[in-house]
């Protein structure tokens, strides 16, 4: 057996796994070959060295670590225990949880309130379609609706006032020229004019007397008679010219008489501060007597403008404002 063959068998020779014949042949060769004997010695030293190496032991916590890897639930429990047992971690976590729960409850309450408000708005404005995508249109519609509502409210509040408020009919009277002769007595024509004046006045009173109302006619005649008596019994006034003011006053008194005859009431009389002439009269009469009142006034004076007709929406009583326009 040659040396190359011996080298390949030295490993088995050391482990003593060769058959007896091969082992004998190697023994014979080693006895005569120093090189192969040297190789055998070095290989034996190597094998002995390897077998003498100190075994490396596993870590002491090998089994515990193995359990952690094999049972993740155990590690989860351990992690939970580590997280929640220390107070410095547990307390802040509990506080944070309480804060989050509080915020959630508050937000839920707010959402419910806003939903209630929205539902009430939808119910109240049934003719307004509330669209989430068109909130501007909704706002404008609401604004218009509010404006209409305000105006309708105003209409409702104004209506009773207008109903209560009586209409004021403006009248302007021009004194007739002949009316001045009634009260104006020139010095040279005192008797004639005075008689004619009295006769005309009596006739006028008779005309003005409402048929069937003789009492009032007599009253007016008495008043005129008293006026004549005063004129006759006043020697200082007799034969003197009567100022136009007295004519206006007479006209005023006649107008007042007509108002009373029509079941009316004089509210106020306005006089001119400088001249003392009556400027206007404010009175009220029943609406049903308006036309007859106008006819009476036509006998007293001339209308500067045609008297207006009574509005269709006439009330029970109307107010009349008469302006006196002396010529």
């Amino acid at each position, binding site marked *: 057996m040659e040396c190359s063959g011996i*080298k*390949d*068998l*030295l*490993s*088995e020779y050391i*482990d003593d*796994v060769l058959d007896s014949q091969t082992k004998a042949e190697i023994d014979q060769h080693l006895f005569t070959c120093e090189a192969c004997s040297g190789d055998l010695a*070095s*290989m034996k*030293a*190597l*094998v002995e*060295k*390897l*077998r003498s*190496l*100190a*075994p*490396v*032991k*596993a*870590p002491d916590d*090998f*089994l*515990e*670590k*193995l*359990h952690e*890897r*094999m049972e993740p639930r155990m590690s989860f429990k351990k992690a939970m225990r580590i997280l929640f047992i220390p107070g410095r971690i547990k307390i802040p976590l509990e506080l944070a949880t309480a804060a989050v729960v509080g915020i959630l409850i508050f937000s839920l309450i707010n959402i419910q309130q806003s939903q209630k408000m929205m539902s009430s708005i939808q119910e109240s404005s049934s003719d307004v379609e509330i669209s989430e995508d068109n909130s501007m249109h909704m706002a404008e519609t609401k604004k218009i609706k509010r404006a209409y509502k305000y105006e309708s409210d105003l209409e409702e509040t104004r209506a009773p006032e207008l109903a209560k408020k009586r209409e004021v009919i403006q009248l302007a009277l021009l004194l007739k020229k002949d009316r001045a002769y009634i009260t104006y007595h020139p010095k040279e024509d005192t008797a004639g004019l005075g008689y004619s004046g009295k006769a005309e006045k009596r006739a006028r009173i008779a005309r003005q007397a409402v048929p069937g109302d003789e009492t009032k006619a007599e009253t007016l005649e008495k008043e005129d008679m008293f006026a004549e008596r005063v004129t006759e019994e006043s020697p200082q006034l007799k034969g003197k010219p009567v100022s136009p003011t007295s004519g206006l006053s007479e006209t005023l008194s006649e107008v007042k008489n007509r108002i009373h005859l029509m079941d009316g009431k004089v509210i106020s009389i306005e006089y001119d501060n400088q001249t003392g002439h009556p400027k206007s009269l404010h009175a009220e009469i029943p609406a049903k007597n308006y036309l007859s009142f106008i006819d009476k006034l036509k006998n007293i004076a001339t209308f500067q403008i045609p008297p207006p007709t009574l509005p269709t929406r006439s009330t029970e009583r109307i107010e009349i404002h008469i302006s006196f326009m002396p010529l």
Partner: protein
Amino acid sequence: MNESVKKSAHIPSKDSDLVKAFQTGDTTAFDALVLKHKDKVFNLCYWFLGDTQEANDSAQDAFIKAYRSLKKFRFESAFSTWLYRIAANTCKNRLKSLEYKQKKKTVSLHNPGEEEDAYSMMEIRDESPSPSNGLEMKERTILIQKAIGSLPSDKRSVVVLRDIEGLSYEEVSKITGLNIGTVKSKLSRARLDLRAKLRGIV
């Protein structure tokens, strides 16, 4: 639970009995098996991988695989043989990972004679002037570990199982899945390589 397992681990118990106990529902029996074999499995992984952390992870992986497959164990071999085979395959798979190869730092790989195996030759950077300068045991152990680590996977597993773990050829054959003749030849070549690499050191 661990204390009770440790106490029970001191009681002599056969692997087969513990495996049967585990298969009948006694999960603590597996802990006893772990405590009994963890050092040998860890030692195998360490010399196979050459790194403590890698050895720890691989050993645990091996036990986890064993735990998941133990109920299907049919006693066709010894439990230890079956367990070491799982560990050896786990280490082989870990060796194949690129991450592990990148951790090779102090070893320069050079294999002019066998280009198919990059780990077959290794030059150990021994800065000492001569082997007789009195290297410490720890240093010698490191150099041996690096020399083993430079071996190809098949040679490495055979030499580790046979010379470091002290297993028989039959056990090595069963663990590695190689026939006995192949084990003999690979072991012989591995020893020759180691002798060449560690000349003057051992």
